[in-house]
């Protein structure tokens, strides 16, 4: 029953989104006119080679209008993006509900682990669609945006992706990509699911769980929310679901770019791999002491 109502709600939201997008474009075409005026005034000022007070006041007026327009445009765009986030979270809830319903249905065998390729595509998509943090002027990037760490008392919610340090059968410790199932305040422990083999659950204390960022940092507006060159991080090795220690080689230049990192690798002469690309989503700060 819950699934059906979620569907209709999603349909509603999609329609609202459609409307918002249309509104956005109206706003943008309206402000286009003013921007063209500004451009013309600039050109005239530059050709005449002098700044008269007339031009100054005119420019000021034009700038003020443009500011108001830009603000309005930003507002609608933010509303549209929020709408998308809402839809996505509903979809996520639906997925988790389906998973739980599936768990209780013991007659069905557990789903076979999905093919590697499918998993990798999913991971890539998740990284790409991580929302970009675009702050209003004066806003600072929040915790879990890019390299900004979570606040000390943050508890990851069910469905959040995390890097979890688990003990493998042979006693080795590894950081794996996992999804949070639940958190128990009584014992202060998380229950996480390895994203790779569905069904393999671990119960871990908070120290062994690092939440992955929930926003991408925009290199153009908030470069301080990115890891810098030579910083030590835990990054997801491409085509795997495990995190390893790495040094940042280069931070992303544009919002949709990846980090370029050097993984610690004893099989190479200098101890580091050649630069590999890892999305912002899968790079977190490394707090581990040197592994044995």
């Amino acid at each position, binding site marked *: 029953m819950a699934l059906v109502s979620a569907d209709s709600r*999603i*349909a509603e939201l*999609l*329609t609202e*989104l*459609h*409307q918002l*997008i*249309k509104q*956005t*474009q109206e706003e*943008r075409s309206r*402000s*286009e006119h003013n*921007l063209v005026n*500004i*451009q013309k005034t*600039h050109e005239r*000022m*530059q050709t005449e*080679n*002098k*700044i*008269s*007070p007339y031009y*100054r006041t005119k*420019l*000021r007026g034009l*700038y*003020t209008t*443009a*500011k108001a327009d*830009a*603000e309005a*445009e*930003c507002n609608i*765009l*933010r509303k*549209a*993006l929020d709408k*998308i986030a809402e*839809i*996505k979270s509903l*979809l996520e809830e639906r997925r988790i509900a389906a998973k739980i319903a599936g768990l209780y249905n013991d007659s069905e065998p557990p789903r076979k682990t999905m093919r590697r390729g499918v998993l990798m595509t999913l991971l890539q*998509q998740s990284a*790409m*669609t991580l*929302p*970009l943090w*675009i*702050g*209003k*002027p004066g806003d600072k990037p929040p915790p879990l945006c890019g390299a900004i760490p979570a606040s000390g008392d943050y508890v990851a919610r069910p469905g959040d992706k995390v890097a979890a340090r688990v003990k493998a059968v042979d006693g080795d410790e590894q950081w794996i990509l996992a999804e949070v199932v639940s958190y128990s305040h009584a014992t202060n422990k998380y229950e996480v699911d390895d994203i790779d083999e569905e069904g393999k659950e671990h119960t871990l204390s908070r120290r062994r769980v690092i939440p992955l960022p929930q926003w991408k940092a*925009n290199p*153009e*507006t908030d470069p301080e929310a990115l890891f810098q060159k030579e910083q030590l991080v835990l990054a997801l090795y491409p085509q795997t679901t495990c995190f390893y220690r790495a040094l940042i080689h280069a931070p992303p230049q544009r*919002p*949709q770019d990846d980090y370029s990192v050097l993984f610690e690798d004893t099989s190479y002469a200098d101890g580091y791999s050649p630069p590999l690309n890892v999305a912002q989503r899968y790079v977190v700060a490394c707090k581990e002491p040197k592994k044995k």
Partner: protein
Amino acid sequence: MSELKDCPLQFHDFKSVDHLKVCPRYTAVLARSEDDGIGIEELDTLQLELETLLSSASRRLRVLEAETQILTDWQDKKGDRRFLKLGRDHELGAPPKHGKPKKQKLEGKAGHGPGPGPGRPKSKNLQPKIQEYEFTDDPIDVPRIPKNDAPNRFWASVEPYCADITSEEVRTLEELLKPPEDEAEHYKIPPLGKHYSQRWAQEDLLEEQKDGARAAAVADKKKGLMGPLTELDTKDVDALLKKSEAQHEQPEDGCPFGALTQRLLQALVENKPFSVPHTKSLESRIKEELIAQGLLESEDRPAEDSEDEVLAELRKRQAELKALSAHNRTKKHDLLRLAKEEVSRQELRQRVRMADNEVMDAFRKIMAARQKKRTPTKKEKDQAWKTLKERESILKLLDG
């Protein structure tokens, strides 16, 4: 009119994102009617495109704000020529010509402090241009930039401690030294008054007397039987009091002799009571005799005091007061002496300052001469030496 090259604006290119090229999905969705709607699978691409649009709009907003701020400041602070540095570099639309003159101005500026710099002559040249243009605009009240005030406040707060001593202050010190008149008061020991029990007894009796008189008046009015109280006379009161006082002075057990007399009599006389007149004086005479013979130590004062705690305390406090006043007096003397010394040194310092000025004058004359490329005259040299020597002598006095 100001030249273009003085303009701090950067003339950004405020073109909005061409969504047809950069955001295909967005454009496609726009083209659709509401019935077709958006598919869930399109959400991701839409999100990315919307993010691009938002980020460019945000950037535009930020730049616009910065530029308007510059414009406003530039218009307001015409005479001051303060340019705000933009936080980021933009390559769009700013001809290279802007970069260089701006840098030169910024170097010459460095805040509002004094100091000659390459910026200064430039601003002087441009001043007339700005001024003639000022007439056309409304005179805007230039908000005065608050000067860095902290050192002034500091020196103001420290001033009372470092200021010169004036003769007035010396006089005040001398006044302080005069011994206060009420000192004698503090050292008096007030005599023991009537013991409180006696005083209260007397007061009580007087009260009763008053009551009695009142009762008598009432009784007269009423013509009632208030007999016994009315009989009480002042005379009787006094007689009663005298009796009780007499009783106080005598030992309780009825023996008329003083303590010493008793002991002596006990030692010398067998149990034969007899009465002797003037028992009080007998007691004191015996005491004096015993002390004279060296048989009894003269305890006189302390014996009394050990019982009188208040007196003991009073004496203690008086001693303290005496010591403290003496201490204060010495300190005030010292202070006065130091103040007088300091005053004389101040005068010397003043003379040093004047000598400094003279030396500086002589120096300036010599420098002027040197600048005119002629050697300073003997007169100037002599004067310079004279002033220098004078200054040295005063300094020696000061240090010595």
